Every structure is written in C-alpha cells, then in structure tokens.
C-alpha cells in the first residue's frame, strides 16, 4: 500500500483532507462562512504590552488569527555588520506548530519575514537610530486567515509601543477575489479557494502605500476597486490602532 512507504511520516492527522468540491463562492448572494458582509472586516482586538521582556510588544486577534509581535532595540547590531549611518530593521515571522489545522504546516511561510520587512521599512525613520538594529519578531499563535496583514498591523503597533520613530502608523488589509466577489479580510477557508488576492499596506495619514502585492488574474478596474476597499479599511484600522495606543498612554502611569 502506498501509505505505508518509508517517505510518509510515522504519524498523520486524522482530520479529513480539505474538501475538493468548491463551495458556491461564485454566486452574488452567497453568505460568508462567518456571516460577515463582503466588505466587512472581522472584529479586531489589539493590545500593547503583551511581552514584558521586549522594548515594545503587541497582541492582535482578528477572528481566529492570533498574533504576538515583540520589538527589541534599538540595540547593538551583530558584530559582522559594517558601520552604518542609518539604523537597521530586522524582521522575523514564525508560526507555532499548532497554528495551522494540520500540525507543522506553518513552515511554508518563509517569505513572510521579508514581506514584513518591506512593509515596515518605508514607515520607520531609520535615521533616528544610527549604528543600531531594531528587531521585530512575530509569532503567529493561531492562523485564521489574513495572517500577514494582521502581523504587519500588529508590528506597527508594537513599534509604536517601543517608541521607535515612524512617519505614520502602518495598517494592512487584504482582499480575496472569489468568483465575481471581492471579500475583505478573508478567513483561512476563503483564502484556500481564492482566485486572486490583493494585499495593501499603507500609511493612512500620509496616503502612501508602502507595500502592495497582487496575485491571480485581475482587470485594471477590479484592481482599482479592491484598492479602494482596502484603503478605506486601512484607515479605519489605523484609527483602532491609534485609539489602542491612546488608551495605553492615558492609563494611569506609574
């Protein structure tokens, strides 16, 4: 039997393989699995100061997507690095082994670290910490879809919590294209069936896009529409991030 060959791991998950039949996503009057409207984001919960050992940290929970980001530094760069008049940004995103429905699937997100770096570098004033490095480390505790945008937004909150100088807060939102519909802030199930996706990271007060990726086939008006939806959601998300920071600041100081 093929299943008994040496190549297969000695254990397997009893969860059934993802269903091959595509749900009826194409219809216009289809309802999202969690009952949201197409252009409605999941409720967001954000909190600073999740990790005491870090200079700044934040916890974000969007639906089932749960993320912690710690910021360390500015601190001494690694020895091998040459002198630099500007600061360095170092990003790392990792997954817990239980983040995905099947154990150990989180390793196929290697590109996320560099994506996070690209999304943040445009917003950070690196001149403000010459010769040193700021480390941004993210851990996805549980993956529930739209992981990267949540990590990016959470990282921006953690950077603010650490007092790293930024031009503006960074907010990130993605949309999935499912048949004729554009759905914002997709969950894992929607992401696995998507025809295309668009992710925007922006600095809402400056109206600047720091990162944009498009995947799958799109027409130009469609890209335009998706960008509009995302930018709108980004500015709302930025407000929530801001209010979260204000809350922390206005809380009775020691």
């Amino acid at each position, binding site marked *: 039997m093929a299943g008994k060959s040496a190549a297969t791991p000695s254990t397997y*998950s*009893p969860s059934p393989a993802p269903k091959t039949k595509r749900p009826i996503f194409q219809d216009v009057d289809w309802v999202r699995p969690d009952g949201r409207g197409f252009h409605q984001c999941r*409720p967001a919960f954000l909190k600073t100061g999740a990790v005491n050992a870090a200079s700044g940290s934040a916890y974000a929970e969007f639906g089932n997507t749960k993320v912690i980001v710690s910021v360390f530094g500015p601190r001494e760069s690694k020895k091998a690095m040459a002198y630099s008049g500007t600061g360095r940004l170092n990003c790392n995103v990792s997954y*817990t082994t239980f983040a995905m429905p099947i154990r150990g699937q989180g390793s196929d997100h290697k590109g996320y670290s560099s994506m996070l770096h690209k999304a943040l570098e445009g917003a950070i004033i690196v001149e403000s910490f010459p010769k040193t490095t700021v480390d941004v*480390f993210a851990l996805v505790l549980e993956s529930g879809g739209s992981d990267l945008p949540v990590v990016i937004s959470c990282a921006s909150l953690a950077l603010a919590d650490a007092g790293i100088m930024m031009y503006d807060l960074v907010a990130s939102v993605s949309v999935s294209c499912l048949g004729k519909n554009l759905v914002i802030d997709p969950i894992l199930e929607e992401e696995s069936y998507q025809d295309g996706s668009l992710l925007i990271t922006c600095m809402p007060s400056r109206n600047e896009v720091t990162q944009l990726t498009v995947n799958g086939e799109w027409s130009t008006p469609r890209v335009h529409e998706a960008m509009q939806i995302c930018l709108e959601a980004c500015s709302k998300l930025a407000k929530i991030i801001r209010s979260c920071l204000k809350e922390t600041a206005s809380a009775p100081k020691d």
Partner: protein
Amino acid sequence: MTSHSQPSVLWQRRSTRRYNPFLGFFSDYHLGLFVGLSLFYSLEVVLGNKTLKKMVSANVSGDLSSEMEVDAFRRLFPLRYHERFLLDSIRPDARPLGRARDTSLALGAVASADGSALAKIGCTTMLAAVKMEVMTPPKESPDEGSIAIEFYMPPICSPLVRPGRPAEEAPVVSKQLSDTILSSGMINLKELSLVSGKAAWMAYLDIYCLDADGSLFDAALLAAVAAFSHLRIPVVSLNEEGRVVVVSEENEEGKSEKEPVNKGKRKLTLSSLPFSLTCILHKNYILADPTAEEESIMETLVTVVLDSSGQLVSLYKPGGPVLAYASAVQDCIALTRQRVKELKSILNEAISDMEVD
C-alpha cells in the same frame, strides 16, 4: 451592497462579554501590574535610599555611590542591591521571600488545537497546546499511545533569543518537562490506544514561551498540565483504507454507518498531576519563584516537582555555588507543598470557568 451604506461596523471592538482567554488574561495582567508597580516603587525609594546611606557609610564604592541613582546602583551592583532587600526579608518586587508571583491560567486559548492552555506566573507566559495525530504503535507496546513534548523559546520571548539561534535553555526545559510528565504517571498511555496493534494516538504537546521572566519550567509544567486537562479527543472512525478519520459532528451523522472507534473516551483520566516550584538558594535565604533578573544574579536553583497527592516526583538542582543542605531542601519541599495547593485551586478554577462558558 448594503454593507456599504450602513454605519460600518468594520473593526468594531470585540465585546468583552464573550469568553476570550487572552482578553481576560491581558486585563488581569494590567491591573496586577499597576498595583504591583506602585507598591514596588514606593518601596524602592524607601529601601533604595536606606541602601545608599548604608553604602556611603560603609564606604564600599567610594565617591561613586554618593550620587548614584537607585537604578544605576541596581545595574552596577545587582547582587548588593538584591542582598540589601533580602536583609529586610523582602524582594525588589515587594514579595516576601517564600511567595510566588500572581498566577493565572486560561484554558482553550488556541482553537486549532485539541487542547490548549495559557499560563502566566508573574510576567512569564506559556502557551501550551496538544494536537492529536494517529500512529501505528510499536510492536513492543501494541496497545499504548505516545506523547511527544517539545518546549520552544521563539525570539519574541526574550531579548537573548535571536532567530536561527535557539536558546540554550529550551532543550533543557524540554527534556525536564518530558521526563517529569512521563514519569509522574499523569497519563495512562493505554488510554491513548485506538485499535490494538493498528492505531494509537500520538499526542504532540508543544509549549511556547511567550514571555520569559524566570521560573520557565514551573510555568511550562503548569501550562502543559492544564492543556492536558482541557484536551478533548476528537471522535474518529476507521475508513475503507484503514486510516483513521475524524467523524464530523454535525452533518454526516446520517450517512456514516461507521462506528466511532473511541466513543465515550473523549477525555483522558489524569491521575496525580505534577506541579512544581523553583527556588533560589542564596546564602541562607530561599527565594521562591525567581524572576529572570534574580535567576541571573543568584545561580543556585532548586526545582521541586510534587504530584497532587504530595508525593515527590522529581528534584533538580543543576549545579550552582551554594550547597543544598538537607534542611534547605526540606524547606524548598515545604514551600512547594504550599504552592501545589495554590496551583491546584487555580487549575480547578480555570476548569470550572471553562465549563460555565
């Protein structure tokens, strides 16, 4: 599209009434922190000044100390700073020597796992999750399952850990944890069997340290025990190919005639739960539940693990300059005994909280 015209509920705040282990945990934590901090600061000023006066009179560090600030003193002479507190039988965070930090526990923090728990001792935070997978049991023990325990210190938890370079404590704690959990006999491996000789459960227990502030083992063990008590084993059946698959709860009730293999065995019977307490031995003092700072200054650690009935499961004393006399070890065990009571009630409370929701 109607969702556009409505006053948008985009990013609406999550209502606090829903059960959310993280939410509860964070708000508690902040409250605790503020109380702790105000206490701590007032003490530090009083004690700190006293310390400095003594320092000057003792003329230990000469003219340097006369203008030294409390914080600088703490950084430059950490040992002396801490010893100054110990003289008054108190610690820099306002705890008496034998008291552990505030401990909280939340079950079911990770929905993608079969059982999970978040444990917090002071600032040290651990997230443990159990995932069940199926394996063919080895020939020597055809009716036993297995447990694999791994402890991780991701770079978020401490400034000392960098990506790509695993922390050196992690494998040590990992080994200690699996030794303790397996030798305590908490879990009967026979309960993890599905079909004798054919299929058995492999329980992957992964514990992530989210915030490292000392006593990592204690927090990790607490999280691990709690994750196992939260564990709900999925109902499974055998399919045509001889593989074990999950029986979905809602829809396929009617059409699947296959008998679930493990009906009524959804929860493990946990006997004699292990709990632990780490103490620092320094001179004649015994400090329970040290913080990371204390651990870095005073090196002799003793970890005592007792099970819920008070039996000694294991005792670690990994080196250190202070010799542990029988009396000191006895004291540690006594402290642990007290602590086990606390931890037991915290765990029971967390379980009952969970059941109410």
